[in-house]
């Protein structure tokens, strides 16, 4: 029996949360192996990948696949390693220091497989998953269209029955991995309204991959249109049921969002490595810039924001592992499990992508004018990070969702309405919830309160067990979260609120920690 149901954080304080410190030594060895692979194989190619040198990326994915990185949480029965979501996500985080590689790997090991893993039938899983899990083939996930992005279910691609086959016609937009993918999960509508999922092979007559998008960042990744012109898909390749494709698409995205959160803090590790190195080499006024208080503040903030996001991510992984562990593995069981923590997954996506944006922006600032030139890696990291807040559900739609879903869960008896009141943020969240009006700005602010509540609750519990720098990061994170929460509360209620006295900020201790570790604490 799981201890914390979906949205349970709102009303209950957990006794412990899943976190990376809890990994066994062989799990840590796997994470270490991922880190070594990134340093040895991926980062040295970052610039060449960014220039889209032919063949490099698929070769890297093949190598990653050989080491097991494309199927860490794919079930063993289908060629994966069957490891926990927590471990798979941590490994992905350490494989994500370069964002272009990260998205390529993240899609083929994540949303391209998840629809099949959760909803595919036995023969579909046996046919497709082993090649994706081994990195032999690359996968793609095709939901978005020119006229349907956030409104994903407004998709227009048609599926028309033709004997035993289906004919798919439509245009899929911004499809990651399209250039290299051999296995596409495609969403289409039967009779103009019944969303239905199909697994489509690249060599399907009528499927073409159009030209690459010319992007701001993630240049080493492939993003292209996939055109379907009466593409003939055999009946056996329909995934789950006619009219139930939205479960396939959206539940894959729930878990995909959580993984994206980890993929978003991966590049932060790279940015902190560069920022701390530069700050300890660059002198102005005869002083290393790492000694200036306002520069140290950036590293201290980075430590706190990273800690908040990281804590939320692995806590959520732990919850998913519990609920999947308790599930009977049936399609219905998988669906219930993947839906249970949709709010928490969304919270992680927003917390992590916004922490990524702030930290990378500040690390660019540490580089001063050099940060603004392409000769230094921060410019690329900055460009690459921008998309995190856009894809896998924009942060706006996630903000519209979180508070709304909590209210629905409370209304339907799936969550309790009283706040745990275990922090200042939680008290504000509890007081604000009954007062949320219809305006999206208020809903979004309520979601901010909930995300912050989820995050500080996790950092409090986690850091109490860790002590040291972690306890300092928690103190600083809580100070920041309180300020954000007060602003959000004012948006919801129109009333002012007095902040509690701040805890110690530990600016110098945290900055020294980050500077010495050349990364997050």
């Amino acid at each position, binding site marked *: 029996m799981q201890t914390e149901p979906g949205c349970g954080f709102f009303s209950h304080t957990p006794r412990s949360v899943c976190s990376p410190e809890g990994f066994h030594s*062989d799990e840590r*060895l796997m994470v270490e192996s991922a880190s070594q*692979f990134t340093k*040895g*194989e991926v980062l040295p190619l970052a610039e060449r990948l960014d220039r889209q040198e032919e063949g490099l990326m698929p070769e890297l994915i093949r190598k990653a696949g050989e*080491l097991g990185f494309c199927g860490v949480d794919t079930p063993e029965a289908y060629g994966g390693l069957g490891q926990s979501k927590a471990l798979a996500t941590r*490994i992905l985080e350490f494989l994500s220091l370069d964002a272009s590689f990260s998205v390529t790997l993240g899609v083929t090991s994540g949303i391209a497989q998840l629809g099949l893993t959760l909803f595919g039938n036995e023969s579909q899983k046996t046919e497709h998953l082993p090649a994706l899990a081994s990195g032999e083939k690359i996968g793609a996930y095709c939901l978005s269209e020119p006229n349907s992005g956030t409104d994903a279910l407004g998709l227009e691609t048609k599926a028309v029955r033709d004997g035993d086959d289906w004919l798919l016609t439509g245009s899929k937009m911004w499809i990651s991995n399209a250039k290299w993918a051999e296995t596409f999960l495609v969403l289409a509508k039967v009779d103009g309204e019944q969303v239905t999922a199909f697994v489509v092979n690249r060599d399907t007559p009528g499927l073409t991959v159009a030209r690459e998008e010319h992007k701001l960042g993630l240049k080493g990744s492939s993003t292209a249109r996939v055109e379907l012109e009466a593409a003939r898909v055999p009946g056996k390749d329909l995934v789950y049921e006619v009219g139930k494709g939205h479960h396939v698409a959206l539940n894959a995205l729930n878990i995909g969002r959580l993984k994206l959160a980890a993929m978003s803090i991966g590049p932060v590790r790279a940015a902190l490595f560069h920022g701390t190195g530069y700050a300890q080499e660059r002198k102005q006024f005869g002083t290393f810039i790492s000694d200036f208080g306002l520069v140290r503040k950036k590293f201290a903030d980075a430590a706190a924001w990273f800690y908040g996001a990281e804590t939320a991510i692995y806590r959520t992984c732990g919850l998913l592992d519990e609920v999947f562990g308790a599930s009977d593995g049936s399609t219905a069981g998988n669906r219930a499990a993947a839906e249970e923590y949709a709010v928490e997954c969304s919270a992680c996506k927003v917390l992590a992508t916004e922490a990524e944006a702030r930290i990378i922006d500040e690390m660019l600032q540490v580089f001063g004018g050099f940060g603004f030139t392409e000769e230094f890696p921060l410019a690329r990291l900055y460009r690459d990070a921008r998309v995190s807040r856009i894809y896998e559900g924009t942060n706006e739609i996630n903000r519209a969702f979180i508070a709304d879903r909590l209210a629905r869960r409370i209304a339907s008896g799936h969550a309790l309405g009283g706040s745990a009141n275990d922090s200042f943020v939680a008290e504000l969240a509890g007081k604000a919830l009954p007062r949320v009006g219809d305006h999206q700005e208020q809903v979004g602010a309520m979601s901010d309160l909930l995300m912050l509540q989820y995050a500080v609750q996790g950092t409090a519990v986690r850091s109490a067990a860790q002590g040291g720098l972690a306890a300092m990061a928690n103190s600083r994170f809580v100070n920041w979260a309180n300020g954000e929460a007060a602003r959000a509360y004012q948006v919801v209620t129109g009333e002012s609120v007095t902040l509690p006295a701040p805890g110690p900020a530990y600016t110098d201790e945290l900055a020294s920690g980050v500077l*010495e570790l050349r990364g997050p604490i």
Partner: protein
Amino acid sequence: MKIVVPIKRVVDPYAKVKPLADGTGLDVAGVKFEINPFDEIAMEEAVRIKERDPSTYTVAVSIGGPECEEQLRKALAIGADEAVLIETTDGLDASVIAAELVAFVQEVAPDIVLMGKQSTDDDSNQVGQMMAAMLGWPQATFACKLTPGVGEVTVDRETDSGEESLRMKTPCVVTTDLRMNQPRYIALPGIIKARSKPLAKRGRGTSASPRVRLTHLAALPPRPPGRKVASVDELLTELKSRGLV
């Protein structure tokens, strides 16, 4: 062919460590530990030999506390067939380690003992040589290439005067240099497989006691700050005044 690979648990060579205030040892709180990088190279080489000749059997052995299991599991993940931990909390020096390994090797009777030329923590570079002497086996140190033959091995070593190629009879002791190979990335399935490979623990096999005792460990004194001089003349005057030239 049977190969024994001794594995030492060492402080991560890239970690910054400080001596304990009382000088009795290192402050290792919160520090990461690794397989001694030279030993990892030896393990890698043993596994490569096995990949070429599947009849090869490799045994990793470590001496120390229960925490050494972590490094032995890693050796198993790289590809060792079996691991043995000689568990002890006794104070150890190179001579005790060599004596223990000799007792172990006499029991296991390998064709080759393949090991790091030194460990990155103590840098003493003695155990391999001591073992060869105690066993009366031929040895090749600082090897950059190892080619097993029938009843013999060929070992290449880079020296200041050029590359040497040595041939010696097995059983023998070979210690590895950095150039021998580049250890692989450890594949995740290998780590999972390592969970079910045999890892035996046993007590010490000898009563050898250390001949060397650590009396005091201290950090190097910080370097005094330098000073910029304006000209060569000033530099010379300064050096002369200190009696340095």
